[in-house]
């Protein structure tokens, strides 16, 4: 591509531009608006709507700005009589078949066609012939259709071809009879499909569960951060009288670009369910009573005080990694104040043998945008499209741009680009990974590091291992990324030693895919048994999750957890919790397991109802305010912790806001510890014995990751949601 700059003139203004750039990119940059429908910055140029026609000097007729490359000396007028009349004519043609049903159209008030018709349309139609009518398509539970409104811009078609890599929609038929659809009835199933709703410039594709429930202009717009994975996608919540009605992307080129995962868009339908905990409850003689906050907090304080009577050792604290930074920090301070070190957030991890070698904050090993610049990415134990859909999209972009990508995985999950694959069965994962390491060592003619030498010499090297090693070999910028399956594996310590040795051998980075939206924050806040704030070593290490459950405590605090769904060892958890004297649950929902085991239930807000901060996979701190009003008597979790801290007589528990708490943590952290994933452990591994593994614990379905998502009916009804477990009853019926 020619990197020369050229000088052009737009509406009389001189502008410098890159030669070959499309005119519309230049006018957008300098803030001159050219109307458009089919053009979209993230999609290829189709130039089929003709709305962007502008007047170019010496051109015999108006040219489409989206498909006209700039050349030196070009003089463009976007508002000349010729340009305006071309745009008006285009609009008149577009409106021939478009219904005049804005009052009953969900897109009304936020419709590109409606807006432009106001600017370029005629007041009165000259068209008296019949308009065409197009049958609606059933695209599944997420996207509704009103295909008569379609203006054939093909943005949705190009989205499938170019962004997801699986073309689900197409233009069927010809001319007057052309229709956008799937031809045979077929739902749109890709995990980013919901984005076609935002792309569609008219009301042809709409948000199905949200449809007809609010008008765009009635709602307040609140910035939010996705709580469902470690990308920290930026969102806008649209809130009607305190209720979160829908979620759309907030553009952030460094993180989610202009996209969000369906999980982020539709999880809001899991917020207002019938099983929300609306009031505090305590259990008396096996009966649950609804009580005031005061009574509940007094009971909670009493229960906790009882458990810590022997200098704290009797209390275990388990927190969801999707909690906010303020909540995790307050839990850490509470644990310290009560004298317990049994504190953990790594609920789905089972192998803690080598936890001393964990980085202070295990991070991605690359910026999110930087993934696209890598030359080789080897994913170890990751069903990435379900774990972090937005990062899967970045990896796909890297692959399309020429990077080599490989997977060491128990199954050949479908990735929509060419990749290498090593089958690493759940039970025998380490052996396959050792094979890749051996192949890399062989190719480089270097010995494998001593602490893994024995394992490597016992590995079988086959063509697939060599192919996976080649993903990393002979390249400058490479990443070995440990996914969720690897980190949840009962041999995680061994897997990590091998992956780290591989990264070191090839001169690449080692990366971790954090488990949840705030796993990084939890590590920084010291929500760990063996470390304090900022990774300082604990004086005496407490029990990790497994330890806390296998050596049952007298009392537990469960923060934002459904013990039967959020933990790897749910059976062990159930036994330990049932045998405890006191269990205090902070939760947004009532669930049977909690009702069984807990003694006090304190209603806290979901991610939409609390202010807070999440630290994402690349270490970005992203703060947000509460978007919606809390449901019932629920209160933001940090506030409940603060009051409980006071009730427990803990010092310095007076904060006025979540930001206050965050700032206190920031002060305590001082100079934030730098990102550093290098492995400094001393585990040496020899045997590559198979282990017993429950695949369901390692590979958590995309719409089962947390309590809110599990309650979103539209998500559960999708093909991906139904695949979760056919036999299981739906978790909750939506209340509204």
């Amino acid at each position, binding site marked *: 591509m020619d990197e020369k700059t050229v000088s052009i003139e737009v509406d009389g203004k001189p502008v410098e531009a890159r030669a070959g750039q499309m005119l519309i990119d230049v006018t957008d940059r300098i803030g001159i608006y050219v109307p458009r429908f089919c053009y979209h910055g993230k999609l290829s140029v189709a130039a089929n709507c003709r709305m962007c026609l502008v007047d170019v000097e010496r051109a015999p007729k108006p040219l489409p700005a989206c498909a006209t490359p700039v050349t030196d000396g070009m003089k463009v007028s976007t508002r000349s009589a010729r340009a305006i009349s071309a745009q008006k004519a285009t609009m008149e043609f577009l409106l021939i078949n478009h219904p005049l049903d804005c009052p009953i159209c969900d897109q009304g008030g936020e419709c590109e066609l409606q807006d432009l018709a106001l600017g370029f349309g005629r007041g009165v139609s000259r068209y008296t012939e019949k308009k065409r009518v197009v049958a609606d398509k059933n695209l599944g539970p997420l996207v509704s259709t009103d295909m008569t409104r379609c203006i054939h811009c093909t943005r949705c078609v190009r989205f499938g071809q170019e962004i997801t890599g699986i*073309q*689900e*929609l*197409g233009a069927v038929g*010809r001319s007057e009879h052309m229709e956008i659809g*799937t*031809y*045979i009835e077929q*739902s749109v199933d890709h995990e980013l499909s919901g984005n076609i709703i935002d792309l569609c410039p008219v009301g042809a594709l709409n948000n199905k569960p949200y449809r007809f429930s609010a008008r765009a202009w009635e709602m307040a717009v609140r910035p939010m951060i996705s709580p469902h994975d470690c990308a920290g996608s930026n969102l806008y919540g649209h809130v009607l009288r305190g209720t979160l009605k829908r979620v759309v992307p907030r553009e952030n080129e460094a993180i989610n670009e202009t996209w969000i995962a369906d999980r982020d868009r539709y999880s809001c339908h899991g917020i207002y369910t019938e099983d929300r905990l609306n009031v505090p409850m305590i259990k008396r003689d096996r009966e649950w009573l609804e009580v005031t906050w005061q009574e509940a907090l007094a009971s909670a304080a009493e229960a906790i005080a009882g458990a810590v009577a022997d200098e704290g050792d009797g209390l275990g604290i388990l927190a969801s990694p999707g909690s906010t930074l303020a909540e995790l920090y307050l839990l850490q301070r509470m644990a310290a104040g009560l004298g317990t070190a049994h504190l953990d957030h790594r609920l789905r991890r089972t192998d803690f043998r080598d936890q001393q070698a964990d980085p202070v904050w295990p991070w991605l090993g690359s910026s999110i945008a930087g993934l696209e610049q890598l030359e080789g990415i080897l994913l170890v134990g990751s069903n990435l499209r379900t774990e972090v859909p937005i990062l899967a999209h970045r990896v796909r972009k890297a692959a399309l741009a020429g990077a080599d990508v490989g997977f060491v995985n128990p199954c050949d999950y479908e990735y929509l680009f060419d990749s290498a694959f090593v089958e690493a069965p759940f039970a025998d994962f380490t052996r396959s990974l050792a094979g890749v390491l051996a192949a890399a060592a062989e190719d480089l003619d270097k010995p494998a590091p001593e602490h893994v030498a024995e394992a490597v010499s016992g590995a079988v090297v086959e063509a697939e291992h060599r192919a996976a090693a080649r993903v990393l070999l002979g390249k400058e910028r490479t990443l070995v990324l440990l996914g969720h399956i690897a980190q949840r594996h009962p041999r995680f310590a061994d897997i990590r030693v091998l992956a780290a040795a591989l990264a070191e051998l090839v001169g690449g980075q080692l990366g971790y895919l954090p488990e949840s939206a705030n796993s990084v924050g939890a590590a920084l806040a010291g929500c760990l048994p063996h470390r304090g704030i900022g990774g300082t070593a604990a004086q005496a290490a407490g029990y990790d999750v497994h330890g806390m459950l296998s050596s049952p405590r007298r009392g537990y605090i469960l923060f934002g957890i459904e013990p039967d769904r959020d933990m790897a060892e749910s059976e062990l958890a159930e036994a330990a919790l049932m045998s405890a004297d006191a269990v205090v649950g902070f939760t947004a929902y009532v669930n049977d397991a909690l009702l069984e085991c807990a003694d006090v239930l304190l209603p806290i807000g979901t991610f939409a109802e609390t202010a807070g901060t999440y630290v994402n996979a690349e270490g970005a701190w992203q703060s947000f305010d509460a978007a919606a009003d809390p449901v019932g008597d629920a209160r933001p979790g940090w506030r409940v912790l603060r009051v409980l801290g006071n009730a427990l007589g803990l010092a310095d528990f007076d904060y006025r806001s979540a930001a206050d708490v965050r700032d206190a943590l920031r002060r305590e952290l001082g100079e934030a510890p730098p990102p550093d994933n290098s492995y400094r452990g001393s585990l040496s591994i020899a045997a590559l014995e198979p282990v017993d593994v429950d695949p369901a614990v390692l590979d958590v379905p995309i719409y089962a990751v947390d309590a809110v998502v599990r309650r979103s009916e539209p998500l559960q009804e999708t093909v991906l949601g139904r695949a979760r477990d056919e036999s299981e009853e739906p978790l909750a019926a939506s209340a509204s």
Partner: protein
Amino acid sequence: MSARAFTPELSAQVCAEIDRWVGKFPAGRQRSAVLAALHAVQHENGGYLTPELMNAVADYLEMPPIQVYEIATFYSMFETKPVGRHSISVCTNISCMLRGADDIVAHIENRLGIRTGESTPDGRFYLKQEEECLAACCGAPMMMVDHRYYENLTPAAVDEVLDGLD
């Protein structure tokens, strides 16, 4: 590709024909043979395509099924619904129209008892809606029956052609 219908195997002859066309395009551009592939499949299937057959072509040429549907529905020479055995297209474009094509169409419609775009209930005839000039204007009015051209038509000439079909 979850809801994908049953995908049948293509016959050996059809595969050979597709391979012949694939060979004419650069490696990796096998999908360029899709038009030829659909023709071959349609011909073998008695004049029309089914979603299952289109899926089979998509699989064979390694392309998304929707792209095959797009092509099959775009070109008027592909039928995507079952049609009669003998396909009759009467040109009604300008030259033929001026030379009485409308009467020819009316005659066939009356004789077969169907409207343009329909097939006879016995599955013998399909009176196709022809969109374009069939490029035999010098012999207008004309029709195409099973890929053969008949020119300078009169109702009697039409009857003779149709009587000769099984």
